[in-house]
Each structure stands twice: as structure tokens, then as C-alpha cells.
């Protein structure tokens, strides 16, 4: 589904991604871990071209996203993204946040979009927040709405950029639960996170990144219990301690 070949990204002189190649198949849940500054978020943001790579290419469902001729807006509709800071639209109600995309980008009739939005809200038990503005929500609620906003576009893949990192500890669970449900339903997911429990439980494959490269990858069982690389061992000993 997504094929990344020798991806390179520089910010000024700093080379953040030093040739990343990886393939993600439909229905897979891939979790990316690594120390801060390792390039994992940048890698994720390249996948929907929020960052423009300096070299290499990204193939998404047979389309070369990195080509200048590609109409990126059309393909982004199929790549949902969830941010660390939620980034809900503060001037729109919860429902309007969710249905803005379908109405404006897919020309969905308003009543149909509202029905879709309400169905999504009901599914996560947030129907009572339908007409609330985002500033009245807790962090966990904000992030769950942000996930619904992305889902309303019926994406083929979901990117999660540290979705629980700015949440209070007691709210991490509800967001992770929702992500687990998504994974069970067969959603293709690429998740940058520090939640090792989540990675262990849900991931089909874990990528460990450091200094702009994929140092090691494998199934959670193997990677957590028997890492091969020194750097992986060192990182895991710190985060699992």
C-alpha cells in the first residue's frame, strides 16, 4: 500500500532522514519507536507530504506522492492524520469539525454528513458533545474527536504522530482503546508513540529508528525480548525500565 524508497530529508544542513526504505501492506499496524530527534515524526509527516522529502520517493496505492505532478490534496483525503496537539478547529463545533471534510472535499450532502458524524460520535460515546466547541473538551476527548475527524474522510491509512504524548496520564487509556478498536477493524495504521504497551499489544511490526535511519525492525515479541542491535537494547532498557 505504501512503499517508501530511500527517503531523505534535510532541514538546512541537518540531515534528519538518511535514506529510509520500507513497505507497509494493507491492514498492517506499524509502530515506530525511537529516541527524540531520531526522525520518526519527520518520517511520518513525509508520508502525507506535510514535509517535502529532499530525495527518494513515496508510492501510495500506485501513485508517486513525491512527484511534483501528483495532485497531493486528492491523495491526502485517503491518508488520515492525528497530531500530538490535536489541532481541532477551535471556531467550529465538534460535529462541524468532523463533517467539514466530507462536505467540502467529497461534496457530501449536509444531512448525509451529519448522519455520518452522529454515527461516529455515537460509536465512541461522545454524542453529548455534538454541539460543543473544542475548548470545552478534555484532552482525551479532543484527541478522540480528532481521530473521528480523520475517519470521516474514510481514509485507507491512518497516521498517528505521538497521539497520547500531550495527554494527562488518566486520559491516555481512552485514546489507546479507540486506536486498538481501529486496529481490530483492520485499519492500516502507522503510529509514532512512546506507549510500549500499546506497541506490544497491537503492532504487527515495530520499527526502531535512530539518527535518521531504521536501525532495527521486527515483530514486537522478537524486538522487545531479543533486540539484535546495541542501540535498540540501550533504548529499550531506558524506556522499559
Amino acid at each position, binding site marked *: 500500500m505504501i512503499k517508501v524508497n530511500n527517503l531523505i530529508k534535510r532541514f538546512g544542513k541537518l540531515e534528519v532522514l538518511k535514506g529510509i526504505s520500507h513497505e507497509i501492506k494493507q491492514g498492517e499496524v506499524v509502530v515506530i519507536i525511537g529516541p527524540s530527534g531520531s526522525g520518526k515524526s519527520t518520517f511520518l509527516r513525509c508520508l502525507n507530504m506535510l514535509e517535502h522529502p529532499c530525495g527518494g520517493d513515496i508510492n501510495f496505492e500506485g501513485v508517486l506522492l513525491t512527484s511534483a505532478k501528483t495532485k497531493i490534496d486528492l491523495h491526502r483525503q485517503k491518508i488520515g492524520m492525528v497530531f500530538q496537539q490535536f*489541532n481541532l*478547529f477551535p*471556531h467550529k463545533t465538534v460535529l462541524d469539525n468532523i463533517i467539514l471534510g466530507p462536505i*467540502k472535499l467529497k461534496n457530501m450532502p449536509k444531512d448525509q454528513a451529519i448522519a455520518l458524524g452522529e454515527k461516529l460520535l455515537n460509536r465512541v460515546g461522545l454524542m453529548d458533545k455534538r454541539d460543543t*466547541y473544542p475548548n470545552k473538551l478534555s484532552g482525551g476527548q479532543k484527541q478522540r474527536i480528532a481521530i473521528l475527524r480523520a475517519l470521516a474522510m474514510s481514509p485507507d491509512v491512518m497516521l498517528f504522530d505521538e497521539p497520547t504524548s500531550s495527554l494527562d496520564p488518566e486520559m491516555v487509556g481512552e485514546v489507546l482503546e479507540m486506536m486498538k478498536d481501529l486496529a481490530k477493524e483492520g485499519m492500516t495504521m502507522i503510529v509514532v508513540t512512546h506507549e510500549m504497551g500499546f506497541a506490544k499489544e497491537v503492532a504487527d511490526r515495530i520499527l526502531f529508528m535512530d539518527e535518521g535511519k531504521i536501525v532495527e525492525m521486527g515483530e514486537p515479541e522478537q524486538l522487545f525480548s531479543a533486540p539484535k542491535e546495541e542501540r535498540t537494547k540501550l533504548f529499550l532498557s531506558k524506556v522499559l525500565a
Partner: protein
Amino acid sequence: MNFSFIEKYYKFFLNGTYTTLILSLLTVVFGVLGGLLLSLMKTSGNKVLKGIATAYIEFIRGTPLLIQLYIVYYGVQGIPMFTAGIIAMSINSSAYIAEIIRAGIEAVDKGQMEAARSLGMPIGLTYKEIIIPQALKNILPALGNEFIVLIKESAIVSVIGIHDLMYNTDTVRGITFIAFEPLIVAAFIYFVLTFTLSKGMGSLERRMKVSD
């Protein structure tokens, strides 16, 4: 104090107030349009446009409005004074408004642009639906302030003979030989105009704050 002149000369104040209001209103319209254009030029990637806008803004903000008014009035042969007044005031306020709009747009959180683009929204639609509505809320207080400044500063056009509130007040002083009291009347009228405007802007801001 002797305000008996009002009965006989109130029409001077009414007409002057009318002229001041029309002048301010037209300046607001042209100033906002010019300011929007300048702010877009300044935030655009094009270096030439950016350079022109920056130079314009710096120059206009760095020179007195009085001189700008004289330059327009005496520099353009045969220009009607009312037109000269509007042009000079618009040129002046557009530079200030440009900076207000630019700051308002830049104050919108960068994540908003990213979130909208990640949904697949094109850049134009993102500005219309997400950035501008939020920027407007940032801009409104400063913009309201600018409008108030504009009404007050417009008194300067009396020097080229536009019959605004200030000019007509001077006329009444000249006719009646009352030097002081007409000024009080004029000050009161200016205050009513600006106070009404600031109250109006205040309630507009409150209405836009529902999502805060």
C-alpha cells in the same frame, strides 16, 4: 460658557460630522482592501512583491500623515480635495492595517494549517474555512482601534479645505468670534463617534468569542 451659537449654526456641525463619517467610511473600505493586498504581498513567497510591500509599509509608517496629504494634494494637478483626502488617508491606513492583518494571520497556530491540509483541503479553502475566520478574531480588536484612530486623524484633512467637522468648527469660531465653546462641541461629537464605534466593536468581539 456660551453655547447659544448652536441654535443658529448647528447645521455646520451636522454637515461637518457627515463629511467626517463619509471620509472615514471610505477610508476604512479602501484601507482594508489595500491592507489585505499588502499583507498578502508581504506573506507571499515572491521576493519582489514582498520587497515592494515592505518598503511601502515602512515608508508610509515612517512619515507624517500631514506630509502625505500635502504630497497627494499638491502633487496631483487639479485633484479635487475630497478625493485627495480619501487617497491620502487610505494610503496611510492601508500600511497600518496591512501589519495588523499579517500579524493576525501569523498568530493562527501552525497546526491548524497542517490539520486542514492533512484532510486534503487545498490551500485556498484552508484560508477561507480555517485560517481567515480565526485570524479575524485576532485582528478585530486592533482593527477597531485603527478605525477609531482614523476618525480622529481625519481632522487633519481640514488643512486642505475639506469641510469636515474640524473645518466647520473653525468656521463657526470665525463667524461667531467664540474661540472656545465650538471646540467643546466638536470634541463631544468626535467622542460620541469613537465611543459608539468602540462599543460596537466590543460587542462584535464578544459574539465571536463563543468558541473561546
